[in-house]
Structures are given as C-alpha cells and as structure tokens.
C-alpha cells in the first residue's frame, strides 16, 4: 500500500485495512516507525525500536496493528517516563499505566512517548525540560499544551492517534491548535492508575485523533472501572462508533457572557459559522448563562496548584529520579527540587503550598472549592435546558513560540473555555471548525470548536460531534506531511 494512503488513513480505517488483509500489521508499524524516526517537531521524547513496539500490541485485539503515541505522563514498564521533567530524567518505571495496558491489550503497538509541558503544567508545551514541541501547521508556533506532543504527532503525520491527559484543557486546547479531535471524558470514565498526577481531582486520560470515530473507538478501549483507581467507574453501556448525520431535536447552549473579550476575530467567525452548521443540521441554538464560569480560572489556579504541590512532594531524591546532593537531608531536598523542577512547576508548587497554609486555607482553597461547586451547579442548570454547551476551544489560534512565556496570566487565559468544564468534571470534545487568520495577520491556522455534555453522556456527545464534523468537512492534510523531515 502506498505511503500516502497509510498516512491519510484514520485509525479506524487502518484497523479495517489490516483486518481485511489489504496491508499487514508489520507494514503499518514499519511505516509509522519511520515517520516517527523523522520527527522534526520534537514531538517524541522517546521512540520505540521495531522490536519493543511489536511486543506491545497483542494480536487479535479490536484495533490490532494500529500504532499509538503515548504522552510521557503515562508510566510504561521498562520505558523511560519523565513527564518532561528533569527530576525524572532517566526514570524507568517498573509498571505500566492501566490505559497503556489497555491499548496494548487491544493490539496497539506503542510508537513512542510524546513531549508535553512538565508535569502537564502549561498550555504551550514550552514548559518541557526537553525542549518545546512545534506546531506542524507553522513550526514557529506552539502546538498548545500540555498534551502538545500528542497533538503535534497526530496532526503532523507522526502517529495515527495518541493518548493525552487533560486537567484544565490539556487535550482539547492542543487538539484545537493542531486541527485534530481531542476528547476529555467525564472524570472517572477512565482509570488514572499509572498517570503521573498533576491535579488528581481534575486529571483525566483521553484520546487525540484525526476524527470523532477514532476518538470513540479509543474511548471504548480506555473506559472502565479499574480496581487500582477507586475514583474510576467507567461508562455504563460502553461506547460505539458514531453514525448520526443530523442534529434534529438537539439543543446547543451558547454562554454568550463568557465569549467576549480577548477572543480573536477569526476564532469568533469560525465559531459563528459552526453555530450556523448546527442549525442547518436541525439543531437549535439557545443562549445560556454560566454565571460563575468567569471565576473558573481563578479557582482553578488555586485548586490545581494545591493538589499539585502535594502530588509533587514525592520527588525528593530519596527513592528515584534526580538526586542533586546527599550532603545532608535538607540540602538533598532543596537542591534536588531546585535543579529538578522548571520555573512553571516551581511557581505552581509555591502557589499551592501557600494556598494550603494554615490560616490561608479557608480564604483560598476553601473559597475555590465553593466556586467549583457553583460552577457544577451552573452546568446542572444549563443541562436542564440544553443538551450541549458549546464554546470556541480557545480564544486564539496557536500563538508564536515565546509569545506568552513572559506573562503567566495571559498564558492561563488560553484555557478560559476549557477550565470551567474541567472543574465541573463533565465530558467535552474539541473538533476542528476550520481555519482562521491570527489577529495581526499571517497564514491561516486551525480553530477548535468545543462541545460539552452532561457527565457520562459521551455517546451522545460523540454522535453530535460526528454529525457536525461531517458537515464541517475540515481538511487537515496540509499539516499531515509537515511533521516529518
């Protein structure tokens, strides 16, 4: 089979071709290994050799032979796992994350471990200790983050699909920036076991794919209760490949109050286009209020760092990873963490430590929890009226490398539409809505359209997204060849 055909095929199409004997699993793997080997995006932090990749995928699985890229936040036995941090440089876990075991059991060889923001803290992938990852649409721009590597390798034709994690938008925002599909399931749909923790009450694994059908197939492989994660429950009834072509009878709520300042004209234009598409497909557009969603970023930047500050305390130089000094206990702790963590991680550890300090807990963590509860209630009342809540995925298209690194707050605002949904724990997807010029001009870049649904209604979300995706007919092939040298 011609390389172009292999490159253009989605995960589902590749699986079907292998099953039909049109192409062998070995051919598919060799093709993708050679693509990954020529990574010019710095999308991979570690790449499989042919032997190790073959070992991973059990034959006879439903997606047998379709390789997958794994965000370097998932622990993989015998394979370096760093979460893009210096503090885990050279760390090789003795066990494999549940999600990775599941993709392997479904027959999917692992292509490699993808770049990310250190410990998933960031929205541009520039916080990687191993260098920024580049956007295949324009290599002077960021792919988004924190799952930037996973998004870039899928969009840039270095992997058919990938696993990422989303805490405040880390799957949806890079998917939007790279013109692919990114799905963050309901909190609890997929096991977190073996996923290096950033903010435990928000972290959720999910797929980054070329289309909605692929996202559905991967979600079905990943979802389920895991006895190693007491917060995991799975999705009742499982997930089937979507078939919907229309949106008749479905209502889509638009939180106009949230979509205002700071949004690029091109992004807004593609958003409005998409609302028209929805109406054309028979869906109804309704204005809704999410009165507390405007406080989501503030609450998130208390809650997530608070959890992160305790999650990251285990990196102390005692048992594994970097140890910078063993002069005495205190200097070992201090130097290891000083040298091991990057600036954004340190900033969040400081923020979180402060927020949990005796005397400040109620003012910060306690209040942020209350805001979170209000946001959950906001979505509950919205879903009493509508089936879905829709927003742009991000207020801008992919920005330039270095553009926002000097101002953390501007960077944080990149997640203004994704964070409220994370706090509510509900599922959301980003699908490509077309291309738009950035403010200030330049070549057109992808715009993401975000659809959120009530907890555990992923099947409904996937059906609607599929219908809309067909109508939009986004073409991502311009980036597909750009990932490899």
């Amino acid at each position: 089979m011609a390389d172009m055909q292999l490159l253009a095929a989605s995960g589902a199409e590749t699986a079907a071709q292998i099953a039909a004997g049109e192409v062998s699993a070995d051919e598919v793997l060799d093709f993708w290994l050679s693509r990954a080997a020529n990574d010019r995006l710095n999308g991979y932090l570690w790449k499989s050799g042919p032997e190790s990749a073959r070992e991973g995928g059990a034959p006879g699985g439903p997606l047998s032979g379709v390789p997958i890229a794994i965000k370097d936040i998932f622990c993989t036995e015998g394979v370096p796992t760093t979460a893009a941090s210096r503090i885990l440089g050279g760390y090789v876990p003795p066990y494999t994350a549940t999600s990775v075991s599941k993709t392997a059991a479904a027959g999917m060889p692992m292509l490699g471990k993808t770049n990310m923001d250190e410990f998933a803290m960031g929205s541009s992938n520039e916080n990687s200790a191993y260098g920024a990852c580049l956007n295949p649409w324009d290599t002077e721009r960021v792919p988004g983050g924190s799952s930037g590597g996973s998004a870039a390798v899928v969009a840039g034709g270095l992997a058919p699909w990938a696993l990422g994690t989303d805490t405040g938008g880390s799957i949806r925002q890079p998917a939007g920036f790279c013109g692919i599909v990114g799905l963050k399931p309901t909190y609890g749909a997929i096991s977190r076991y073996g996923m290096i923790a950033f903010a435990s009450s928000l972290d959720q694994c999910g797929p980054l794919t070329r289309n909605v059908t692929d996202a559905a197939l991967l979600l079905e492989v990943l979802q389920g209760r895991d006895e190693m994660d007491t917060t995991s429950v799975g999705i009742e009834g499982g997930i089937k490949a979507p078939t919907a072509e229309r949106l008749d009878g479905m209502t889509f709520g638009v939180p106009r109050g949230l979509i205002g300042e700071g949004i690029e004209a091109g992004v807004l234009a593609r958003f409005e286009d998409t609302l028209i598409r929805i109406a054309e497909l028979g869906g109804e557009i309704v204005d809704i209020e999410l009165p507390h969603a405007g406080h989501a970023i503030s609450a998130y930047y208390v809650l997530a760092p608070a959890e992160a500050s305790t999650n990251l305390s285990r990196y102390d130089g005692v048992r594994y990873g970097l140890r910078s000094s063993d002069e005495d206990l205190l200097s070992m702790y201090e130097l290891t963490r000083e040298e091991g963590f990057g600036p954004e991680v340190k900033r969040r550890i400081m923020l979180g430590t402060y927020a949990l300090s005796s005397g400040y807990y109620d003012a910060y963590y306690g209040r942020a929890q209350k805001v979170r509860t209000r946001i959950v209630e906001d979505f509950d009342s919205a879903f009493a009226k509508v089936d879905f809540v829709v927003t742009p995925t991000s207020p801008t298209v992919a920005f330039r490398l270095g553009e926002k690194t000097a101002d953390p707050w501007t960077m944080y605002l990149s997640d203004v539409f994704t964070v409220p949904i994370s706090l509510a724990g509900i599922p959301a997807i980003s699908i490509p809505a077309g291309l738009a010029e950035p403010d200030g001009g330049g070549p057109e870049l992808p715009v993401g359209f975000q659809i959120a649904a009530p907890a555990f209604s992923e099947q409904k979300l996937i059906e609607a997204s599929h219908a809309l995706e067909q109508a939009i007919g986004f073409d991502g092939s311009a980036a597909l060849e750009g990932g490899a040298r």
Partner: protein
Amino acid sequence: MSTEYEAVIGLEIHVQLSTRTKMFCGCELSFGDEPNVHTCPVCLALPGVLPVPNEKAVQYALQIGAALGCELSPVSTFDRKNYFYPDNPKAYQITQATYPFAVNGRLGEVRIHHAHLEEDAAKTIHTGGGGRISGSDASEVDFNRGGTPLVEIVTEPDLRSGAQVREWGQLLRATIRQLGVSDVNMEEGSLRCDANISVRPVGSDELGTKTELKNMNSFRFIERGIEAEVTRQKEVIAAGGEVEQETLHFDPSTGELHSLRSKEEAHDYRYLPEPDLVPVVPSPETLEMAKSSLPELPAARARRYEEIGVSGQAALLLSFEVEWAEYFEGVLEAGTGIDPRVAANWVTGELAAELRRQDDRPLAESKVGPAALATLINMVAEKKISHGSGKSVLEEMVSSGAEPESVVAEQGLEQISDSGELERIVIQAIEDNPKPAEQVRSGNEKAIGALVGAVMKATQGRADGGEVNRLLRQHLGL
C-alpha cells in the same frame, strides 16, 4: 495561701492493625524479613500510583470504634497530611483529619473524642554515629512496614494523673487485644501513646498551655513521664513562669525530659482532602456487624464480676486478661455454691502468686485446672482444712499437679474436727502458757494471740482459727 494545681491529660493512641496486607496496597505485612521485600509501586510512592483502601482495615477500625462506644460515621473521608521525611515516601500521610470513622465514645471514665484511620510510616535506620541522624554515616529506609494500617484514638482531656493514665491505658489495651484486631504490643510499636499535658488551678474549667509527651513504649514509662512533666509544669508556674507549648521526650533511664521541638518549629501540615480516594461509606450491614460482633469487653466484664461480689481490684485484674477470666469462670462452674469473691481471691491472689513463684509460669501451663482449684477452695470453705493448709496444698498442686484430696491425705492436713481433741489441746496450751493466760484474764485481750499460736503449733495448723478462739475464750472465762 498558694493555689493548688491539677493535671489535665489527654491521650493520642496509635494502634497498628494486624491485617494481612497494608492500608493502601496489597503488600503483605510481616516482621523480620529482609528490608524492602514487601514493597510495590504504591507503597514506594512511585509516580502515577493510587491508593486503594484495605477493606479489612476499615472493618477492624469500625470494631475498635464500636468497642469504644463511639458513633460510627456513615461517611468518613481521607485527607493528606503533608511533611517531608524519607520514611514518608509520598511526602504526605493519608489520614482522616476532618471526618473520622468514629466519634464521641467513652471507655471507662474517659471520653473518646474520635478515632480515625491512617497509614504508618516506614522505618529509617541511621548507620554509624550511634544510630542518631546527626553524625551518622548514612541513613537507610526499610519500607516493609511502611503503610501499615493505623487507628489513632484521641481522648478528651479527662485524665488527671500518670497512674490513672497507666490504668486506663491497660484497660484500652486489654479491650483492643480482645477484639483480635491488633497485637497491641508497646515494645514492638503496635501500640503507641502520646500524652497532651497541662496543669490548671483546681476547680478551674479552663485549660492551661499544653505540652506533648511523645511516643513512650510502656505504660510504666508513660506514668513516670507524665508525673515528671506535671511536676515540672507545677514548678514553672510556682516560680512565676509560664509553660511553653513544646513537644517533649521522656528518657526513662535518666528520668529526664528533653524538648524535641518548640511551638515555632511545629509543622504546618497543609491538610488537603485526599482527591485520590472516594469517601468510606460502610454498608448498614457492616456497621451493624461491627457493633453486634463485639465480645464481652473488659469494662463490661469487670462490671459483671463486681455485681456477683468480686472485689473491684480482682474484677479488674480478671477482666483484663481473657484467659484468667475464663479460668475464673471455670472455677465457679466446677465448684457448686462457691463464693465468687473467695474464688476470685484464690485465682488472682494465691494461684497467681504461686505460679509467679514457681518459674513465673504462665496460666496456660498451669498444672492446676479450674476444677482442682474449685475442690481445694471448697475444702477450705467447708473447714476440712485450714486456710493456711490450703496454701501449702496449692503449692504442691502447682508443682506436681496432684489432686488436692491426695495432697491433704498424704500430708495429714485434715482439720481437727473432733472438738473434744481440740478442747484438750486448748486446755493444755493455757496450762503451758500461764503468763499470757493471766494477762488475758486480767483484761489484755491481745495476749490471746500467743495462746492461739501455741494451739496452732501443737496442731500443725490443722485447727480452725475461729474454733480455737472460741474455745480459748470459753476456758479463760471471757
């Protein structure tokens, strides 16, 4: 007039549960193995792992809560207690800081504030430099016992002295031991006790500044440590000073108190609700089982024994040790009409002393069964032998396991029941001891003792003391 001060003491007791596996992973809990063989990614806190609560530990904890008369919470939650130390691999301990599994209980005279579940730290070993961290060559951590399930019991400040703490602590230990959920061995660390101590003027309701006395490994040491600290606090106040909040260590070998850390050095644990764990919601059946499966506990048993006439001290002693209680009940069962008070005194007094005297033998290895002891007690009660003879019969029984009847027969200890014979001996004694006889006649009743002694000597202790007394008084004309 100087003010009188009283001590106010509250306890925090850590009980290691004797579950087969750890609190949050499946690693086996066993003693004395190579370091770090009972470990896994979870208890080593490798990146990406999550805790899964041990259901057996939750069940054991609920049993302790029920035994302490607590209200068992329908929902309890876990929190993270953050601090850096190599024996604390996550750099936080999972504990229950806000909604513990049991609240508002009482054991004996002490109210229980609450009891919560948590995990134990690993063990740090400092090599070289005398085993202390300062000056040591290296420090090593053994994670075999890291993650052992712990129940921490927190009392109200209802205790007033070191001796009371020791006695109550023994009651608590006996209670938990009987549940079979912990070894409660203080030397091995499966039971640990911290005391919060303050003093205040007698009659005051306010609490003074407290100090914390850490981790003493026997109730004797706790008693001594508390007494030393109470004395110190009273002296500080008497000298016009103020007690400062600090954490102290008591060195039993020197009797000295050392400050471990002051208030300024106290940790800020930055508690956080544990996001990795869903709340513990025991089913109504589990809660019911925790309450209904309780055995008769020491406090209840002591009450029951007191009600059938056993003296307070003996009742408490019997109640603390199940096997002694069972032995005692065996004696009552075997000896028809036996007086429980008398039986209890024989068991906790004569028998316990004799076992101690003869190679410190444990009760389980005693050659004297409850039935044999019951026979002996009845022989004394029926005045077949004197109480004194009874003791020497018991000595022989404990040493050889012989039946009481055969010992009595062999040693010719049968009491002189022929009152004619006893009367002859009494008259003889008065004749042989004219001086004390005269003293008694002239009003000095105490002098009768010498005559009783003479009769006992002549009968080799086989006479009944009461009868001897009666006959002497009769023949001396009293």
